[in-house]
């Protein structure tokens, strides 16, 4: 089935904050440039990038810098929007659109779980407000509802500029249906990308891209080439190394995803503080160092 958006590896850029919760601009720019050495599809403001937490003025500030760094040939930047209503989502998209962006990643509002009619209204109202832009749906339980293949078939019939999904929790069977029964480009996680690639064209949302860039690229290429056994083995390597890395930070305390993503970026060599915007807690430095030690002791080869 022909897809509405090209297959690629998509990576998130996290936001570095100083002790006053001000953007550390130089670090942010360095992180973007580092990501572009290996990848050319990158985004800001998923959960990892604290897109849910920003006020509009801060959103514009960061989007402006992201535009300056990514407005280059063969770079495909995307801006995420996480907010509580159509009005709030459209307001932020309009701000990023004015700055120059045309690809957006949108989540459904989390305050009340959307019914079938309501999610259709949401996609029609948001995507329909920017007909020359493209949209990826960030599909996750935090929104109160995870959409499935049957939902996407209904939406893609009515919303021509919904072009992709980010769906790292899809199980093997759902991956098959998504890939074979919809026109959308599905960005799976490292773990479910091999299941998707068994059945056709799909993409990777590379949570570990910053730390394991060469393995991520290898995984993507193996999936595209149809070398599935090798792809599963690489996915397993990434999964095991990731679990080893995160284990010291998982003891008993629930943390929001971005806290872990900042550890991943920092471990990759970027000067990324671990703090999160209030009220969320980041991981402390001692725990982070334990994570790095664990990774080096058991999976040193992954860092090559």
């Amino acid at each position, binding site marked *: 089935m022909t897809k509405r958006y090209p297959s690629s590896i998509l990576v998130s850029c996290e936001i570095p904050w100083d002790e006053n*919760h001000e953007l550390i601009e130089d670090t942010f720019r360095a992180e973007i440039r580092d990501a572009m050495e290996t990848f050319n599809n990158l985004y800001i403001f998923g959960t990892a990038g604290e897109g849910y*937490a*920003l006020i509009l003025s801060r959103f514009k500030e960061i989007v402006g810098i992201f535009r300056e760094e990514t407005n280059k040939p063969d770079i495909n930047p995307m801006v995420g929007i996480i907010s*509580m209503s159509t009005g709030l989502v459209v307001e932020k998209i309009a701000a990023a659109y004015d700055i120059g962006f045309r690809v957006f990643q949108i989540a459904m509002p989390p305050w009340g779980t959307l019914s079938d009619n309501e999610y259709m*209204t949401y996609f029609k109202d948001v995507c329909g407000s920017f007909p020359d832009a493209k949209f990826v749906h960030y599909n996750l339980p935090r929104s109160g509802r995870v959409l499935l293949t049957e939902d996407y078939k209904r939406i893609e019939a009515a919303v021509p500029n919904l072009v992709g999904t980010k769906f790292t929790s899809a199980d093997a069977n759902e991956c098959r249906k998504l890939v074979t029964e919809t026109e959308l480009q599905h960005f799976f996680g490292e773990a479910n990308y091999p299941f998707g690639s068994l059945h056709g064209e799909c993409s990777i949302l590379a949570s570990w891209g910053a730390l394991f860039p060469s393995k991520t690229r290898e995984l993507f290429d193996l999936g595209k080439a149809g070398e599935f056994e090798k792809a599963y083995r690489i996915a397993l390597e990434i999964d095991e190394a990731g679990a080893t890395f995160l284990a010291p930070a998982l003891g008993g305390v629930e943390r929001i995803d971005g806290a872990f993503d900042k550890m991943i970026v920092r471990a990759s060599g970027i000067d990324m503080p671990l703090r999160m915007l209030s009220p*969320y807690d980041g991981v402390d430095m001692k725990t982070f160092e334990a994570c790095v030690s664990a990774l080096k002791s058991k999976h040193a080869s992954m860092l090559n």
Partner: protein
Amino acid sequence: MPKRYPQAVLVSCELPWDEHQRLMEDAFRAQVRTTLESFNHLYIFGTAGEGYAVTLSQFREVAEVFWEETDRPDVHPMVGVIAMSTAQVVERIAAAYQIGFRMFQITLPPWSALSDNETITFFKDVCGSFPDAQFLHYNTAHSKRVLLTEDYQRIEAVVPNLVATKFESASPGETRKLVTQTELQHFLGEGNFPWGCLHGECSLLAFTAPLSPARALAFFELGLTGRIAELFQLADEIDSVVEALYRPVADLPLVDGAYDKILARASGVEMPLRMLSPYEGCDIPTYEACVASLRKAHPEWLE
């Protein structure tokens, strides 16, 4: 135990939107004035008032109108703020503070359930930014974490201007602990207010007040005067009224505010049923079925 905020009946004002999702200012002012005829503690921007959905400019527009209508002696207006981070919450409170408000109703951010530390950080950062304001915590499962008595004991020890909660889902046992073991004024719903009254001073979040202001006031008075048997009897009647009103929409997946608008409209104010996108309100035939259902079961409530 002395409470940090006066005992009261608290009533929500809903927002009427036209077909272009713009505020119907006259209808909103009329609703606020009608509410003020019977009550003097009122608020905007809970879930019922679509506080989660408005943009900052809509927030300011509505708050300014609300301030014009409620800036009077012996009226205690409150502004709700539902947002996704400390910074977003503080930005909105600052906007309402500049207009003149000093009492705010805040919820925990809903994107991810807060840990104990994060909960304390949220209240310290938000309430600490406005030390001469007072705050009520809107304690709802929409925020992915419902706080309990032990949580409030920890928070009230370090946040002096957290003065109250809105907690309609507290169980009888939890209600007892809240009332007897915290300094906060707890605004309970019609269902659990009687349980709170068994143990001490508490307040009423009067969901059904627009439909029958006199009954809401009488209900509160029964609690104040300790007429517990009559209080529970009226609570039972109110429960029956609510069940009858919403019977035709019982299986519809509507967000809370859609139900509040049905009730507001049934009370006689000009209240369109539409909600801000993407949420759906109930349609007029279904609304009429709701009113008919209530009229059949409890005609005296529509007189």
